[in-house]
């Protein structure tokens, strides 16, 4: 495994009924960088993202996060690996999935206190900082239901950050937002990227892919058809799928 690779996926395969959802995906996620997964619907990009933190299972292959190895077969070692992985990998969802019965601040401190067992005062002050950073401190005592989509997503990002993860996975973070809110969230993500946070992002936002990503992966029908630096792919797409994807923007 190369020094700067934080996550390595090797020959991940997943079958669902008669459909081969993932057909031998191999990729390396570089540390400190933004990796973006692109592809048409049903290409498996969300699925591969979710295999990393175990929200999706896989049949064969292996995932490595540092020295933790995650296998496909259900076993005690897989459970142990997942527990370790989830403490170091955060996730932001397309539908935000904030806890509606808790306030904004409570959402952010929930994980560090109850999962990591950290001190409440410490966690709270850190949470306040995070909310300030994403621009949501004013709403610290509000309930998610009173927030707009963009505001909720920013809180969701703060919630993930509160766990101090090595990597944050983003599953189409702005797909459910209108352009204005998309911009809000995107600016937070850019800010994060600049600070050196390792990010893996599944998105349809081509301008983000072009300007923020350090690495692009194009998926189609369960495999990576092309990958490389954004400038290269945008200038000279080699695969049919890539061309269709990037040229339409």
């Amino acid at each position, binding site marked *: 495994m190369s020094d700067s690779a934080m996550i390595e996926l090797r020959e991940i395969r997943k079958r669902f009924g008669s459909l081969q959802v993932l057909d031998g995906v191999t990729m390396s996620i570089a540390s400190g960088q933004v990796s973006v997964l692109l592809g048409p619907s049903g290409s498996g990009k969300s699925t591969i993202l979710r295999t990393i933190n175990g929200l999706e299972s896989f049949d064969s292959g292996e995932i490595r996060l540092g020295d933790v190895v995650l296998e496909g077969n259900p076993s005690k070692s897989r459970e142990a690996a997942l527990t370790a992985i989830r403490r170091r990998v955060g996730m932001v*969802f397309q539908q935000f999935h904030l806890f509606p019965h808790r*306030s904004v601040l409570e959402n952010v401190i929930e994980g560090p206190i109850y999962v990591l067992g950290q001190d409440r005062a410490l966690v709270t002050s850190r949470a306040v900082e995070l909310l300030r950073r994403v621009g949501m401190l004013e709403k610290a005592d509000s309930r998610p239901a009173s927030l707009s989509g963009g505001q909720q997503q920013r809180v969701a990002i703060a919630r993930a950050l509160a766990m101090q993860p090595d990597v944050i996975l983003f599953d189409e973070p702005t797909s459910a937002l209108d352009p204005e809110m998309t911009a809000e969230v995107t600016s937070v993500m850019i800010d994060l990227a600049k600070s050196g946070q390792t990010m893996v992002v599944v998105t349809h936002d081509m301008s983000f892919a072009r300007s923020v990503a350090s690495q692009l992966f194009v998926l189609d029908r369960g495999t990576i058809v092309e990958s490389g630096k954004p400038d290269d792919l945008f200038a000279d797409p080699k695969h049919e799928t890539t061309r269709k994807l990037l040229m339409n923007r």
Partner: protein
Amino acid sequence: MQRKLFRLIFIYFVVSCSISIGWAQSDGSLERVRQRGKLVWGADEEGGGPYVYPQTDNPSNLVGFEVDIAAQLAKKLGVQSQFTQGQWDKLPDLLNRGDIDIVLNGYEWTENRKQRFGLSIPYYIYELQLLGKRGSTPNESWDAFLRSAQPQKPRVGVLGGSAADDFLRTRYAQQIDIVQFEGASEAMRAVELGIDGVNGNLQDLPVWTFYQSGFPGLEPVGPPVGRGYYIIMTRKEDAELLRALNQAILEMLHDGSMRSILEKYGLWNTTQAQRGLEVDSSGSFANGLFNAAETTNPVLASNSFEALRGWAVVRQRAGLLVQAAGVTVLLAVIAMPLAILAGMLLSIGRLFGWRWLQFLIRTYIEVIRGTPLVLQLYVIFFLLPELGLSIHAFWAGVLGLAMNYSAYEAEIYRAGIQAIPKGQWEAATALGMSPFLALQRVIMPQATRIVIPPVTNDFIALFKDTAVCSVITVVELSKEYSIHARSTGAIVELGIVTAVLYLLMSYPLSRLAGYLERHMSRETQS
């Protein structure tokens, strides 16, 4: 001996002459029966033996000493007898409505009934017999029985609202704890098994005689006590019919047919032989002229039916109803939280537990939901003692209610949990929460908010279901109501009070539910 016999025969002649000579008023009642060719008599099969009951090996055939008496009486009137089924305490209503000619079903002579109906001379003189557990309680006499339970009061079961009930209430209220049952055999079984500390049962002697062989664990305590008269009831205006019936009864007493019927059911005893028969001018049996070989047995006071009406009754009984409402509240308020907690655990087990646990829970839910609460209460109250666990009636009620409702709450919670979007699980999991932590911190708090409306609904229903506990002797509001309504006749007045009490209990719950719902949704909408 000869002198006594002579006296009896003399009395008989006097009486039968006065009956037949008497008031030749004709009201047409007898004529109507003759024309119809049928004497329609009303009784309740549910009362069981030896009165009127389905024959054991041929259940579509009705037998019982009253069946036979009715047949004989009809024959003497020159017609056929025709049976009509009615609920025991509603038979007088049927009589007034004209559906039946006579009520012939273990109805006792009371002063009050005499005011409202025509009462025949007795066809049977019954007594009450105290029953105790064979071999355990000293059963030589009432005194020994009462003493044996000291320093506590002995607990004696009776049929709720019966003459035995009143007998104990008027005479032994201080010395005996009265336990009310809905059926004769349940009361007797309770003594046999020592359920709920019941050590005695005051039963009508005919019933004891009839059921004796089925309850080998019981034996009589002392001699029979009290005395009452089973009479036939007719409408007040049917005096002619009444006279004809009295005549017929007399004839049966003297041609031996009454005796052979009673002997057939083991009901003939010396008490029946001591008969003096007096009627007053209307042809009704005038209780009080009885003499013959008097024992020291007191005549049963006619307290069992005093028709008080109007709001005076309410003033008199309302306090007792409120007290009984307290029992209702206690039952509900203890049982429901248990049911909710159990339901929550069951739903979690059913959704997330091991395969075998899921199967067990599903079975439990199906069985409990699919069988009536009353049956479940019976099982708890009567079955557990056989396994060595004797449980106080109140707690059996709580347990039964909690178990029954837990099955429903389990399904409600399951729906609540499944209504939580999958994304909540994913977000919790992504944060690193174990399934248990996710349930505790994220899922169950949200599910609980969802299930508040249906659960409060069930809570309100539970308040009413506490009424079922009366079948295992718990006297709660409904039972208390029916006892007083039956004994005073103030069905409507007391019914209104009872309904109001139930409403008073349920309404705060609705308000609480509304408050909780608003409070919870305020939380999610800031």
